[in-house]
């Protein structure tokens, strides 16, 4: 199993800590409510481990995928919600703009926009901190079973060492709404990124 040294892991945790602070602020702005973030948990897991990840296996979820390419390699970032939470988030985002009974019409578009903003903020910060050039593609929204959405869309699934990196769960204050952010990159890309970050911190 591939692994990172403690220093490599710490450098990546620091990167995501900083990036998520900005992302949480943006999401709070969008839904006019406070977002609580856990300290990022960094896990390198294989596809098969990911299938049984936390309480997501066999669950209906919505996800927004943002593919990216560049110095970091090819990868995907995912913002993922339990299906039951998605409409609640859209209601909070759209309450000033449409009547409540119209909100469901905007679910796909609104979640795509949230994903676009949050994932771009994280990737932009990653690019800034690493000096990597990263180009993002237009985000795509998917709804269905967790396993099908996240794992079948792994861009590196035909490569050895293909892994999922990083999950962060976040919670809306006072609400039972949880979400996750996943990154899929191959192991070499993650290792290289951590080394670049360590060099910058020296």
């Amino acid at each position: 199993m591939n692994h990172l040294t403690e220093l490599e892991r710490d450098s990546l945790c620091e990167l995501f800590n900083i990036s998520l602070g900005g992302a949480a602020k943006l999401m709070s702005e969008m839904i006019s409510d406070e977002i609580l973030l856990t300290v990022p948990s960094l896990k390198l897991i294989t596809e098969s481990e990911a299938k049984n990840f936390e309480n997501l296996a066999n669950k209906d979820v919505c996800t927004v995928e943002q593919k990216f390419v560049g110095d970091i390699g090819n990868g995907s970032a995912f913002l993922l919600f339990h299906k039951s939470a998605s409409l609640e988030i859209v209601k909070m985002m759209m309450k000033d703009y449409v009547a409540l009974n119209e909100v469901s019409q905007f679910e796909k578009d609104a979640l795509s926009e949230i994903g676009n903003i949050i994932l771009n903020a994280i990737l932009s910060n990653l690019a800034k901190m690493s000096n990597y050039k990263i180009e993002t593609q237009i985000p795509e929204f998917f709804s269905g079973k967790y396993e099908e959405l996240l794992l079948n869309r792994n861009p590196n699934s035909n490569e050895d060492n293909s892994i999922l990196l990083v999950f962060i769960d976040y919670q809306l204050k006072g609400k039972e709404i949880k979400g996750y952010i996943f990154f899929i990159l191959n192991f070499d890309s993650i290792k290289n990124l951590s080394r670049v970050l360590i060099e910058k911190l020296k």
Partner: protein
Amino acid sequence: MSQKKALIVDDSTVTRLMIRKIISENHPNWEILEAESADKAKSILPDHLDIDLFSLDQNMPGTLSGLDLAENLKSNYPNSKIVLITANIQDAIKNRAKNLGIDFVEKPVTPEKIIPLLEKI
């Protein structure tokens, strides 16, 4: 006072709706046009030579980005205000917008970010 006209170009229905509402609430007499891509915007421009405000998303499906469209618009609409709306806050995007002399707004769109721009028109 003559009626002003705005064109909102964004592939997100939600963002178009938000910008439309912010403009309408502050300037109820403005005419507001919408297009879901830069290519679509280009197709309707010949019928609208008097647009005062262009709100352009940076990343859209099609052949042109918001900045690409802004470059085209600078010469044909020298007196119009062009605003780039972007979730992609990389320095290269910001610098290109600055070099073009256009404003940019980082998503999410909020009244606090849009209203000051409207006051300049």
